[in-house]
């Protein structure tokens, strides 16, 4: 979606083969980089907007109690992850489509994964929670720890919790399973 990858434009310059390749490669990746950066800028805006924030918060609020600090994962995490992607990635995608013509989330997510190691910061963490289950789980565990004012004692692995019982409303999402 980002670029038509046609080196044809440069043939008339009749550069040596090596130079031509280098030139083409560089121009291509520059355009891709710029597009990528523009989209990142939009995403920054969107995730700060109230619409996204509210959705994300209510999602975390609704499900954080399902998540536990155990190594093994429960099957329900996968259902919650699916639902999370449906709701939040959808919101982001809709907002982006309004700003970027022909936006493709799938393409963009691929780029993000490829560039994972180069990137950091809050946006990337949020984007990773869509495509990377471990990042998603960590987000929930962090939220739960913060929510419950947990102090994690790493020496014993024990946790001290102050816990406010809140009814966990799961009525709206149907996990009708297999």
């Amino acid at each position, binding site marked *: 979606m980002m670029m038509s990858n046609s080196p044809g434009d440069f043939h008339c310059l009749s550069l040596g083969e*090596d130079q031509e*390749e*280098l030139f083409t*490669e*560089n121009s291509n*990746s520059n355009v891709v980089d710029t597009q990528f950066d523009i989209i990142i800028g939009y995403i920054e805006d969107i995730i700060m907007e109230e619409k996204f924030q509210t959705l994300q918060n209510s999602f975390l609020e609704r499900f954080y109690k399902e998540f536990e600090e155990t*190594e*093994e*994962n*429960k*099957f329900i*995490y*996968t259902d919650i992850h699916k639902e999370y992607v449906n709701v939040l990635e959808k919101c982001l995608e809709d907002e982006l489509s309004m700003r970027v013509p022909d936006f493709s989330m799938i393409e963009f997510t691929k780029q993000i*994964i*490829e*560039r*994972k*190691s*180069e990137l950091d910061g809050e946006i990337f963490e949020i984007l990773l929670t869509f495509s990377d*289950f*471990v990042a998603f789980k960590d987000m929930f565990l962090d939220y739960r720890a913060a929510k419950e004012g947990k102090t994690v004692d790493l020496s014993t692995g024990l946790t001290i919790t102050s816990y406010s019982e809140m009814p966990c409303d799961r009525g709206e999402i149907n996990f009708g*399973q*297999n």
Partner: protein
Amino acid sequence: MGLLTILKKMKQKEKEVRLLMLGLDNAGKTTILKKFNGEDIDTISPTLGFNIKTLEHRGFKLNVWDVGGQRSLRSYWRNYFESTDGLIWVVDSADRMRIQDCKQELHSLLLEERLAGSTLLVFANKQDLPGSLSSEDIKKMLDLDNIKSHHWRILPCSAVTGEHLLEGIDWTIDDIASRIFTMD
């Protein structure tokens, strides 16, 4: 291609591989996973959900998914098929009683569209146990020679001694890499 371009490409291409480890309960999936990761394997209980480990090996980033194999959990397996590059099917070679069950489960997986094209490694695990079936026996009993839909290989192994585990993973990576990472 200029040096800068090459460097950039190398940095961008994190070679990620997704491996899905399945098999009947008690086959040794979680034990294999932990053994790989250099963790203690003495206190492993049956998996009721799933485990994920990310291992760095030979410049590849392996995301290994290990899902519980009890009968009641097998209907969840399908939730983990997506994007699988390699399927590792673990067999308890000492469990002669359930080898038919094992065969059926494997062959129905191979029909799954979302696993089409994935590499299949069969681990004939628990070779350290006396009386365990050989990998040759298991190959016949699981009817592996009839598999035409996937690249496959069977290896005898033991999660306890570690025998052949690495060889299996290396073959799996090589097979996947020859399909996926050939372009540069």
